[in-house]
């Protein structure tokens, strides 16, 4: 009268076959497999991301607020790619001038030029010039500075986004603006100008108001008077892109694709732990309650009803605030409270199964309570519990994300929630940095959709009553 291993195997196989027939479920399941694969490969796909997320040094070479590379395909205009020059294009030894040639063929020119110059000199000071020669012959002198030499070497960093860079850019634009509007007493001020674009803008009346990309060949010239030799390692130029990588960057240059990978990992970890623990506890609680019935059931149900009345959100806020901003505290709270709803469903199903003849038969044949539960009830209820437990995963992950936005993000891990919380903190919405919002949220949506459809398909397979709907 007992269920044999073969029976369970057969049941599992037939369930699998039936699951394959559920189209939505199969789509959802593929999403889960995809997320799982990404998580498992995260150390290789996205090295040095986890602990380094808040370390600006890790992301220094990236562009700020760059759109994903595929933005060109879906949005009008072309964006400058991220272009790192480790080697100069030309070296003029007579004046010790190095040149970088940049072809701007984009509607959105580079977001920044960052120049690192270093070298050796026997003088105590050198004079450094950094110059941008535009296709229209105009010339912007960004740096004209004396640099002191210590121990025979120097290193210098310049960026268009530095205050000097911004000043020069604005001056250049303002000059051009004055040519067109000589009587304009209140030209647009620096804050309102799209200043990063001015050095690459057409010299027309819109240069300050609505700059247009001037396409053509630009030459960046660096001249260090008094230098002996440039240091090849330390001398390089970044033409920072307007697009970068698969998911772009945030306003702190962080590569969102790398964060996303770890977001998937942590989502599955916290969701997985909570879901597995809830399934186990709920099975144990629900089945015990259903199996013993009577006053045991009564007490267990009353207790569960009280637990069901406890709101989880305020508890999460208060514990994470008071004890620590950690995803493990969130996991703990969900482990403690997450099983209660599932236990109620399991109990109801368990009572049905208990009335099934073979459990009664097993009892009458003298199987012990524990044996009846493990041999007869678990095989029936487990698939059901798994189906329902799958639905918990997105719930927990979304809760984590929400708490992050409230300011309770775990600073030691990268989650989709943390990425979104930063997006909110740095006003990604009103700056139009759509990828920063869309992509982490898409992670949450994929996860939710994946587990909900899989769970529902499973539910349909294990609960024939629902199939008729």
């Amino acid at each position, binding site marked *: 009268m007992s269920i044999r291993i073969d029976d369970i195997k057969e049941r599992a196989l037939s369930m699998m076959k039936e699951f394959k027939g559920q189209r939505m479920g199969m789509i959802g399941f593929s999403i889960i497999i995809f997320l799982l694969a990404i998580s498992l490969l995260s150390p290789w796909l996205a090295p040095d991301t986890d602990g380094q997320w808040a370390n600006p040094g890790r992301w220094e070479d990236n562009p700020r607020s760059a759109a994903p590379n595929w933005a060109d395909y879906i949005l009008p205009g072309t964006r400058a790619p991220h272009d790192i020059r480790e080697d100069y294009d030309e070296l003029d030894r007579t004046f010790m001038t190095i040149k970088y040639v940049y072809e701007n063929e984009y509607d959105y020119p580079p977001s920044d030029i960052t120049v690192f110059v270093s070298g050796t000199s026997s003088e105590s000071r050198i004079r450094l010039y950094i110059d941008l020669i535009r296709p229209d012959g105009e010339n912007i002198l960004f740096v004209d500075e004396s640099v002191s030499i210590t121990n025979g070497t120097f290193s210098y960093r310049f960026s268009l986004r530095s205050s000097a860079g911004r000043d020069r850019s604005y001056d250049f634009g303002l000059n051009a603006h004055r040519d067109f509007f000589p009587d304009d007493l209140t030209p647009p001020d620096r804050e309102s100008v799209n200043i990063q674009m001015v050095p690459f803008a057409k010299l027309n009346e819109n240069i300050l108001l609505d700059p247009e990309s001037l396409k053509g060949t630009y030459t960046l010239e660096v001249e260090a008077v008094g230098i002996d030799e440039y240091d090849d390692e330390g001398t390089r130029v970044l033409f920072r892109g307007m697009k970068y990588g698969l998911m772009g960057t945030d306003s702190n240059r962080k590569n969102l694709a790398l964060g996303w990978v770890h977001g998937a990992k942590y989502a599955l970890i916290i969701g997985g732990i909570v879901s597995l623990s809830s399934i186990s506890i709920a099975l144990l609680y629900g089945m015990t309650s259903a199996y013993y019935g009577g006053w045991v059931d009564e007490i267990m149900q009353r207790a569960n009803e009280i637990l069901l009345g406890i709101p989880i959100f305020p508890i999460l*806020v208060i514990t994470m605030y008071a004890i620590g901003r950690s995803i493990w505290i969130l996991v703990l709270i969900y482990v403690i409270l997450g099983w209660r709803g599932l236990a109620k469903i399991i109990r109801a199903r368990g009572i049905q199964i208990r009335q099934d003849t073979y459990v009664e038969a097993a009892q009458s044949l003298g199987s012990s309570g524990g044996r009846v539960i493990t041999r007869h009830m678990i095989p029936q209820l487990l698939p059901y519990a798994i189906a329902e437990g799958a639905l918990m995963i997105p719930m927990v992950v979304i809760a984590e994300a*929400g708490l992050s936005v409230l300011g309770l993000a775990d600073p030691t891990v990268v989650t989709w929630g943390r990425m979104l919380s930063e997006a909110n903190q740095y006003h990604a919405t009103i700056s139009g940095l759509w990828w920063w919002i869309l992509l982490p949220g898409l992670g949450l949506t994929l996860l939710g959709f994946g587990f909900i459809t899989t769970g529902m398909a499973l539910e349909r397979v294990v609960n024939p009553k629902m199939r008729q709907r």
Partner: protein
Amino acid sequence: MPASLKYFILRSINAVIVLFIVVLIIAFLYSDMADRMAEGRIADEVRAYAGGLPTELTQEQRSQLIREERARLEEIHGLHDPFYEKVFRRTWDTFTFRLGESNSRTYYGASDARVTTIIQHYLPRTILLFTTAAVISILLGIGMGLKAAQVAGTKVDKALSIFGILTASLPMWWVGMLVILIFAFSLGWFPAASYPFPTETGYEYYKGVLIRMAMPLATIVFVSVGGRAWATRNMVTSILQDDYIMAARAKGIPERKVIYGHTLKTAAPPIVTSAILSFLLSIGGAMITEVIFNWPGMGYLLRTAIFAESDMPVIMGIVYITTLLWVVGYLLADMLYGFLDPRVEVGAEKKV
């Protein structure tokens, strides 16, 4: 109706127990922080006291007096009471709305530092946004679900189901971010932030509030209505398969009456309760949505208290009020169920 009376009483007792447990947890977690806050306040007062002591006292006399004063103040603040006593005192204080004073000097724009005052300042806006959204979403969702159930199996029905499943897996506040991106940033139809509230009076004021409310409201409704409709649809289709519906049809009752009478009236208790419960469950999401839209409600206050001020008493107060709202709402849902379904008995399984 003694059976339903017993049901109501048991439910109420449940609610009180739940509230007590949560408040106990709050008090437990609060106790340590409250002690530290009290220590800080005592240190300030002792310093003031020491400054006011007559100068002709000897060093020894001074420190003696200061020590006594400190001990007196510590006694007043109950710093040396046993832990459980502190926890229970705190529990009782919370229960009776003695929520203490905010650490922040800004009072968050309220008229004084008392946490109750601050919450009173913010709560009505949350309730305004949340209940408006709930009413719209429930009415619309039930209507859509009913229609879908009547055309079960058709393309419209399937589309609604997919919409319901898709939106159910979306975080509400994330949709809010997208809404801002689209309707405020790209199209510029609405202001991106709800705050500050309009300063005009009369008609202009209400118009201003409405414009600010449009996006958060639309977001909450958009995210919740599909799931609501889907749940309603499933409940109604399962009832439509019940025998008494067939019997009612055989009796020649007009189809409209079968749907809006027999079916809907039977479906009402689970539909209404599950609507209320799922709205209560979305309280967290809605509070975060407030943050996204800068809607100056409880969620906005909570984030400010956490992020900008690290203001424990205010956070505690919000947590308590949120819990209270939840517990009352939960109880209300239970009561409503008992009221709507003549069959209700203690322990009866709800079809939620």
